[in-house]
């Protein structure tokens, strides 16, 4: 894919390295001349020096019809302007940005940004999930939190131990997608698979159903 990385410092550096490894074609725009020198020497790619929230900078960098633009400046208003120019004037297919103020996440989506990343929001979400239910080792949300993947460690006293999957009643829109077992790496279960103590279950569900899932497996 052809990707523009606009603004940012350490995150930009990391992201650029990662994207190059994955063989994407990258253009970098950054307003800090010293950081531009650093990025171009480390990553061996073209770096345009300029304020990416200016129309002519985006035009000169040649972002027209790129697949993705990622705006990483520290100012939310700048990121919105960059994304809106890219989408409205240069036909960039997907625009992504970070926001410092988590309240801007929904707002920017409403104003046309495809994906808005708020690190504060993500950290807060992670902490609240980690503290409410200790048995949920890890929770990951995908598709804007419409779907979550929960990792549950099966304790010996759980009701589901030694039961077949077909005998466990799960809430609707829920599936045990994978079982990780020490003796046999991983199992994609069928109805007749038995759950054992010490298994790690990867459960796909809606966020609302997370507690019900836990109840169905533990009680």
């Amino acid at each position, binding site marked *: 894919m052809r990707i523009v990385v606009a603004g940012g410092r350490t995150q930009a550096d990391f992201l650029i390295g990662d994207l190059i490894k994955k063989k994407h074609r990258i253009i970098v725009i950054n307003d800090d001349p010293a950081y531009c020198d650093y990025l171009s020497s480390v990553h061996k790619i073209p770096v345009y020096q300029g304020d990416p*929230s*200016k*129309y*002519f900078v985006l035009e000169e960098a040649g972002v027209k019809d790129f697949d993705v633009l990622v705006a990483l400046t520290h*100012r*939310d*208003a*700048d990121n*919105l*302007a960059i994304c*809106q*120019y890219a989408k*409205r*004037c240069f036909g960039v297919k997907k625009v992504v940005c970070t926001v410092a*103020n988590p*309240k*801007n996440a929904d*707002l920017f989506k*409403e*104003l046309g940004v495809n994906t808005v990343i708020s690190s504060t929001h993500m950290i807060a979400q992670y902490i609240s999930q980690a503290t409410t239910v200790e048995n949920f080792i890890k929770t990951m949300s995908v598709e804007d939190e419409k779907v979550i993947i929960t990792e549950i460690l099966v304790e010996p006293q759980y009701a589901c131990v030694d039961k077949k999957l077909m005998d466990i009643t799960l809430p609707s829109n829920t599936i045990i997608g994978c079982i990780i077992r020490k003796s046999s790496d991983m199992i994609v279960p069928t109805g007749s698979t038995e759950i054992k103590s010490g298994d790690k279950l990867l459960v796909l569900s809606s966020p609302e159903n997370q507690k019900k899932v836990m109840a169905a497996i533990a009680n």
Partner: protein
Amino acid sequence: MKFERKERVIIVGCGRLGGRLATMLSDKGYQVVIIDNDENSFKKLPEGFGGIQIKADGIDLETLKYVDIDDAAMLVACTGNDNMNSLIAQIASRIFGVPNVYVRFEDTDKEKLINGFNIQGIYPFKLTMGIFEEMLSNEDEED
């Protein structure tokens, strides 16, 4: 002007333009709310200023909700930053449906961000160029 008196006007950015505009509209009988994140900027307002001054971040949604943006008749975005002005104007017009939204842009290219929305751009650059263009066209006529 097409606004009824007593209608509410929100001005974001108390620079020279924002400050003077707030004073003028307040004197004409509008309910004016002026927002700026720097307390010192309110010194530009005259002593008997009849509007409300709020020290807050004008691009924060909570601030704008606090000043009841959804029933304002007009909003003027005139902070010193074009991108902030663009964001504020879009919140006012596209999210809260404020009927009359004005935005000041130093960079005339920013027009492309608000094209097609119910937002009126004000460009000091174009106004200045207009004066010179007019002057030169008058000279041509005299020749």
